[in-house]
């Protein structure tokens, strides 16, 4: 365990420049906008004194690196600007919407684990069989189907025709847990379906790699049942890479959530981004991009650490 802490520190330190460069990109985004932002902020009032005051307030006369430092200092203190539409701080809006998306992401991950891992194990254990081809077909379906269209199709079948579940809307889990589950099942399944395909492919290739190893052959030679060989010997050792993949997929769900939340009218982080895009609310778009990037980098970091803790060989090396 003594090697783990220096590794974690080293790995965390390597994440810092990535976060800094990503923050640079997010900052530079506002420079892509045509026109002078101060003129837009000043509105009808083009009084030179007002314009000069705004330039001073937003440090717009400073050189670009200095402007970045001012912006980064604010971002570190939680100041990501103010929404033009809601007149609320971006950080407050994100804090309000993020729990909804986290709930959706966790439910979707549950679906993807329930579909992707058993399908991947089955495909690897029965390589070349009908089951393998079926599982690979399901995986290809998952990665090829556009989530927003799949969502629309499910709404037409399950909500409009069968009337089993609501087509849209959201109820907080604290206020109405039953309604919350009813509104979240379809979007979580849609998102989970896309991720299940990727997870199945990784599980299959990871299992195939392990099933070729000598210790698996030894376990079979000892007369252990195939189920025990696959689950107790192979799957346990194939689990390490899957933790990383699942963490990366959890981050990817944020991207999927953008469109899924729009289709199902779920008031989460993704829908906030779409609304901000429609309203050209650039501060919110920038804030969402920054939070997503940092969140994703942190998730990758946690996945690496988890893999290290799960794999004794990695710890030893």
């Amino acid at each position, binding site marked *: 365990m003594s090697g783990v802490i220096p590794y974690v520190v080293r790995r965390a330190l390597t994440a810092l420049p990535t976060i800094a460069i990503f923050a640079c990109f997010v900052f530079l985004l*506002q420079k892509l906008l045509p026109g002078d932002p101060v003129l837009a902020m000043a509105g009808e009032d083009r009084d030179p004194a007002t314009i000069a005051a705004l330039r001073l307030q937003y440090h717009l006369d400073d050189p670009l690196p200095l402007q970045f430092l001012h912006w980064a200092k604010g971002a570190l203190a939680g100041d990501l600007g103010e929404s033009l539409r809601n007149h609320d701080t971006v950080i407050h809006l994100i804090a309000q919407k993020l729990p909804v998306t986290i709930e959706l992401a966790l439910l979707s991950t549950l679906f993807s684990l329930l579909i992707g891992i058993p399908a991947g194990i089955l495909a690897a254990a029965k390589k070349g069989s009908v089951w393998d081809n079926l599982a690979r077909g399901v995986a290809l379906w998952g990665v090829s189907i*556009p989530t927003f269209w799949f969502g*629309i199709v499910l709404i037409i079948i399950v909500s409009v025709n069968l009337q089993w579940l609501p*087509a849209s809307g959201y109820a907080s889990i604290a206020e109405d847990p039953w309604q919350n589950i009813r509104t979240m099942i379809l979007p979580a399944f849609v998102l989970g379906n896309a991720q299940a395909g990727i997870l199945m492919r990784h599980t299959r290739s990871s299992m195939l790699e392990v099933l070729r190893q000598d210790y698996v052959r030894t376990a079979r030679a000892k007369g252990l049942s195939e189920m025990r060989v696959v689950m107790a010997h192979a799957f346990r050792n194939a689990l390490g890479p899957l933790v990383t993949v699942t963490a990366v997929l959890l981050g990817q769900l944020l991207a999927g959530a*953008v*469109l899924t939340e729009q289709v199902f009218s779920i008031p989460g982080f993704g829908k906030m981004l779409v609304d901000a*895009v429609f309203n050209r609310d650039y501060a919110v778009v920038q804030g969402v991009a920054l939070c997503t990037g940092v969140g994703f980098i942190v998730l990758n970091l946690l996945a690496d650490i988890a893999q290290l803790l799960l794999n004794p060989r990695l710890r030893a090396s």
Partner: protein
Amino acid sequence: MTLALERQPGIETEAPTPRGGAFRKLMANPSAVLGLSIAAVCIGCALFAQWIMPFDPLKPNYALIRKPASALHWLGTDELGRDILSRLILGARTSLSAGLVSAGIAVGVGSFFGVLAGYIGGTVDIVISRVADALLATPFLIVAIVLATFLGPSLANAMIAIGLAAAPVFTRIARAQVIDIKATDYVESARALGFRDWRIVVHHILPNIAAPLIVQATLTMAQAITAEASLSFLGLGEQPPIPSWGAMLNSAKSYLTQAPGMSLWPGLAIFLSVLAFNLIGDALRDALDPRQE
């Protein structure tokens, strides 16, 4: 000098995988044939749209608003009475050109920086790799949406945004391949013979790193078609009245109960074209590098 180098035994300039064999393998794979057939239909629609569209896809017909499929309008009409089949056919042009241009930008920009990082190494490598890592740190679609928002809504900007968002993957692949190939005998020999760096890169490195880049480019086509449809669905891609599958799906979303067919066809078109390029990409990977299977 080049001829002397190319004729020396053991100093191969060709990739070890025989390309003819790869093509035969590709054509023997039923998934690849299915993918190529679907892609051929989509490409045919995009290229010959003006000759095969049964109606003007841009002209509204207010007497035929949201009509179901009929003998005259095989897939029905949309909210402005326009023929859905004609709009789907013209939409193929938007989707495929977006996929092609975006993948082209990604391959060009990404590979250029990847080769630069791998070949020069040192500080250049560190800077380029860090920037690529930072861009890869956020999901591809979010980067594309955010870039497209700031660049402004248009198909050209959507293609630039998607291409730039997909480029870091190519940087990573090209860099890793160049580092491997840089150490081979034939590159060392070319350098010892005094060849200029650009010549070594163009004649000896690029042909040998092409295979993984082609595979990734095909898969990126699939990703780019989905991304363009997603951006158009959000109003950031092709602007009305020019049809795009994503935008058609977005307008159809408002009529799920009155005209569910309106949302069926554009989605199916996106699904099939993405499926086609995924099938081709997977089969290409198996054919060009059997070790990955």
